[in-house]
Structures are given as structure tokens and as C-alpha cells.
């Protein structure tokens, strides 16, 4: 049964939703509006005056080969982060789901990384893989592998992907585990009696029944990879080497606050905003249809 509260006047409901509206307005609508407005201007280097350029900033961006390269980088980066973090999380969740004893401890330990801020996680991984004093680098050296993510593009990308995915695994793990535990045990037993062995059961029963969880995590993780990985990239590679790890959100920062090109930075923010909106709409429109509830 649905319960609805009916208000007599307009003022009380308005007052009740006001905090949410105010927060959204101050932290989203206002900055987003500012970004759209600023994207149409080029400010002078001292920020004293602004020159109207219309869509000039966008025109310049789309012709810029660095900016187009950043698109590809972002696509590779977010795909890898999403696949790695969800894949590992699902694997761990399947293992934890089969565990009878000590699952509480196991779960707690797996959830801890989530409490680590992205920037701190970045520094942790940076120390491990530091080209001169890193532990992992040293061991890799013993094995004859010369690790240097400061110079090597793909090593840099690998490192930021692993560092970004690492903190995310906990979160995904929790959702996958909850999803797995929500599947009635008798359904799995029925499939076992029907002759399906573990892998067949997983492919034909468990994974389809997990699809609402998987879909939700897919949306959340892509958005995470687009925005919240800034801290990791900033601490580990600062977008280098040669912009090999400069994802779109990092470019907004480096062009705007390092390069002082605020107009272009604002234009990039607007493009980013559009991309995420489109991605989310596409995901809900097309992928959700294939989800079994």
C-alpha cells in the first residue's frame, strides 16, 4: 500500500524540500550555470576583464588534438577501472558468499579500503611503485622488470587504473555480496538438482539474477571513473607522462588552474556535463531493458 501525505497549503512542503533545493542550487545549478556562462568568454590573464567569444572555446577544443586524445584516454581509463573493480569485486563476493565461517571478518577486511580517501590511496600506491624506493618496483627489478611509470605510458595508465579500482572494489563487493545473498538458496539448489554445475549455475542463474545490481554498479562506477578519480591521478601521475593519464576531468583542472585558461576549462566542464548526462540516459534507456528484475 502506498501512503501519501497530503498538505493543505504550499508553504510547509516548500519549507520541507528547501534544504535539498538550496544545496542543489548552491553546489550544482549555480556552478553549472557559471561554467556555461564562462565557457562563452575568454578572460584576460589577470581575470580583470572578459571577452565574448561565443562558441569559440568549443570550436578550439574540438580541433585540439590533445583534447581529442584525452577523450580516448578517458574511455580507456573508465572502461578499465569499471571492468577491473567490478570483476574483482564479483569474484571476491562469490567466494565470500560460499564462506560459512568467518565471513564477517572477511567482509570487514574487504570493506576497509573504501574508507581510504582517493588521494591517500593514490599516495599509498605511489610509494609502493615509486621508481626509486618503491617496494614493488624493487621486487619487479629482482625479477628483471624495470618498472618506470614516470616514463612509460602504459605502466602509468596501469598504475592509476589499479589505484582507482582498488578503493572501489570494497564498494562493489558489498553490493554484489548483498545481491548474491538475496538470491533464494532453493533456486540454486533447484538448479543443482537440474544438473547445473557451479559455472553453469553462475552463468545461467546467478549472473542474470544479479543484473539489477550489476547495472546499478555499472552506472555508479563509470561516473566514479569520470570524476572521483581526480585525486588518484593528481597524486600519482599528475596526468603524465605526456598526458597519457590526463582524463577529461583532470584536463579541466590542469587547463583551468594550471594553464589559467578559464574559458577553455569552463567549456570542458560543460562538455563533461553533457557526456555524463548522455551516458546515464543511454544506460538507463538501453541497458536497463536487458535487466531482469
Amino acid at each position, binding site marked *: 500500500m502506498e501512503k501519501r501525505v497530503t498538505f493543505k497549503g504550499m508553504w510547509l512542503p516548500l519549507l520541507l524540500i528547501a534544504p535539498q533545493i538550496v544545496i542543489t542550487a548552491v553546489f550544482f545549478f549555480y556552478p553549472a550555470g557559471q561554467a556555461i556562462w564562462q565557457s562563452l568568454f575568454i578572460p584576460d590573464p589577470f581575470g580583470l576583464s572578459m571577452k565574448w567569444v561565443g562558441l569559440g572555446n568549443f570550436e578550439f577544443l574540438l580541433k585540439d588534438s590533445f583534447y581529442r586524445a584525452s577523450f580516448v584516454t578517458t574511455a580507456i581509463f573508465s572502461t578499465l577501472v569499471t571492468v577491473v573493480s567490478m570483476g574483482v569485486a564479483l569474484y571476491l563476493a562469490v567466494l565470500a558468499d560460499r564462506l560459512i565461517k568467518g565471513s564477517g571478518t572477511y567482509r570487514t577486511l574487504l570493506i576497509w579500503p573504501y574508507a581510504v580517501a582517493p588521494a591517500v590511496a593514490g599516495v599509498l600506491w605511489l610509494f609502493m611503485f615509486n621508481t626509486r624506493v618503491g617496494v614493488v618496483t624493487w621486487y619487479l627489478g629482482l625479477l628483471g622488470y624495470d618498472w618506470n611509470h614516470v616514463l612509460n605510458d602504459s605502466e602509468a595508465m596501469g598504475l592509476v587504473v589499479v589505484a582507482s579500482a582498488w578503493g572501489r572494489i570494497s564498494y562493489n563487493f558489498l553490493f554484489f555480496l548483498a545481491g548474491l545473498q538475496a538470491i533464494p538458496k*532453493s533456486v540454486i*539448489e533447484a*538448479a543443482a*538438482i*537440474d*544438473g547445473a554445475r557451479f559455472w553453469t549455475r553462475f552463468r545461467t*542463474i546467478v549472473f542474470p539474477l544479479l543484473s539489477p545490481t550489476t547495472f546499478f554498479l555499472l552506472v555508479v562506477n563509470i561516473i566514479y571513473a569520470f570524476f572521483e578519480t581526480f585525486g588518484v591521478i593528481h597524486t600519482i601521475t599528475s596526468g603524465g607522462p605526456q598526458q597519457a593519464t590526463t582524463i577529461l576531468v583532470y584536463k579541466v583542472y590542469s587547463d583551468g588552474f594550471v594553464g589559467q585558461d578559464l574559458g577553455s576549462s569552463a567549456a570542458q566542464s560543460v562538455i563533461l556535463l553533457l557526456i555524463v548526462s548522455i551516458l546515464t540516459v543511454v544506460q538507463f534507456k538501453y541497458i536497463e531493458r536487458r535487466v531482469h528484475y
Partner: protein
Amino acid sequence: MATVTLENLRKSYGNTEVIHGVDIDIADGEFIVIVGPSGCGKSTLLRMVAGLETVTSGDILIGGRNVNSVEPMDRDIAMVFQNYALYPHMSVFDNMAYGLKIAKVPKDEIAKRVANAAEILQLVPYLTRKPRELSGGQRQRVAMGRAIVRKPAVFLFDEPLSNLDAKLRVQMRLEIKALQRDLGVTSLYVTHDQVEAMTLADRMIVMNGGVADQIGKPLEVYADPATEFVAGFIGSPSTNFLDAGRLGRRVEGGAKVGIRPEHIRTVAQSETDYAGKVVYSEPLGAETLIHLKLLDGEDVTVRQEGALPIPSEGESCGLAWEAKDEMVFAKDGIRLRQ
């Protein structure tokens, strides 16, 4: 089709033994109902036969083959679960075909078998639907269909009707019985409902605290219960238990005397030594249940013909019964035969 044999079957969780040794030989095509209150181990027993629980000690033989360490899928059984356990993301057809597809049965053979099962179970119009679009009774049928199409040697039913409403339960009970007769498949059926047990079973196993108190044909169990528990559990309303000492029946070691409600009749107080006050009566039409309190505080239920006069509340009645209808039980609940 196969025989099923349980030999001194035991199950422990850690140090707690929950099944204390069950023995039974089940003939080919026999319908066995395992009945008992919740927590008596009846579901555990069934799940051991299914291979969903390990056997602690003893043996399970299906068709003469020891299956103790055989995987559920290789035991040639099919199971119907209490919550049906249908695959929610598959259509009715796919639900029934799932096991056959895994067994790599040819496509046209699958289609034929599913169509046949759907015909028997009146599911033909629903084959393309998802389980959530079906009523409880239809889901129950799909679960049955999934068991039938595989042509197993043994059917296992784990309280398949307890999620249905009363009317549907009676209807499905008849259908299950008819289906089992037609197919002639050996069946084990778990229920807590003694009416289901009485009506379905060729033989029933009455379980109590992990022990099979009595195994036998329903009417034999009813007429001749082996323990106080069986006498109390089978039959509704329940058997009356009276203190043997107070009745003056001095049977060696006897603690309680059980008399079924239909064996007691109300008589004039002058004709008998036993009397009670009527607490309330339940006229059910064909019969009337009269609940009385004896002078020493014991509760007694009398079942009489609906046409007989009904005593009013608070009235004192004499009670009488034949000595042959008395069942004497020892302190530990075991029946004592005179």
C-alpha cells in the same frame, strides 16, 4: 523408477545429532509422506535423500545404488520446493526445459516433453509467461512440471502446498495424488499437515525430534499409534490424554491413557464415575466438538454426531467410553499393550 532404502540414517551438526537413525524400505512407486512438527528433522531427512545435506552416518540407496557421496544431479531425483524455487528470469517453458537443456536432450525432444507436461498440468496457455506473472497455484504446477519432464526415478516434495490457500491446497493435493498414481514414480513428501499425510500417503513416517516414531499405513497409524506423540499428532481434534492413576487403571508402568474424541460419549452423570463441565461446544454441522473440563482440571474433547443434542455451556455431563478404546502409554511415551 526405483526403490529407496534408508539404513540407520543419521545427521549431526557439530555435536548436535538431529536425525537419530531412520530405517525404511520404500517400494517402487510407493508414496511415502514424512510428517511431523517443525524442527523434527523431516526436511533434513528429505534434503539428505536429495543430496543437499551430507550424510553423517548410515546409507541411502536409490534403486539399490548407494548414493551417499553422489552429487544431487546424478541421483536421478527431482525436487519440488516449498517456495517453488522457479528461475524468476526464465519463462515457464525455459523453467521446465532447463534441466533437459543441461542434459543436452535434443531440442525437439525437449519441446515434446515440455508440451506433454504442460498438457497434463494445464499450463499450455502460460508457457511464455514469467513466474511473477503466475498465480500461486500455477507456479506450483510449473514446479511440478519441472520435476516431471526430467522423468526421474524419485520425486521429492518439500512442503509443496504450504504456501497455497486452503481451497487450492485441497485441489492440488488431489492432483498430486492422481499424478503420482499415473506416473508411478516413487515419491517422498514432507509436510507438517497431518491431513495431507493421511490423504496422500501409501505409508507415512511420523517424525518426532529426529526419530521416526512410527512408520505405517495412515489408517493403521491412526488406529494403532505406537507412541503418545503419534496419538497426539495424528488426528484432529487431538487424542485426549488422562492421568492413568486418577482413572484407577492400574497398568504396570502406565502413565497416561489416551482416548480419541470420537470414542467418548456424554451420558447421564449417574451412569459413570467421570464427569466434567462443558466449557464450550463447536457445532460443525456433521459433527459437534464438545470441550469439557474434568473436575480435577483436565481438558477433554468429545466428538459426537451433529444430530445429537448439544449440551449447553456450564452444564455438567457424565463421560463414558469402551475399555477397548483406551491406549495406555508409559512415562516415556511408548505405548503399552495389555
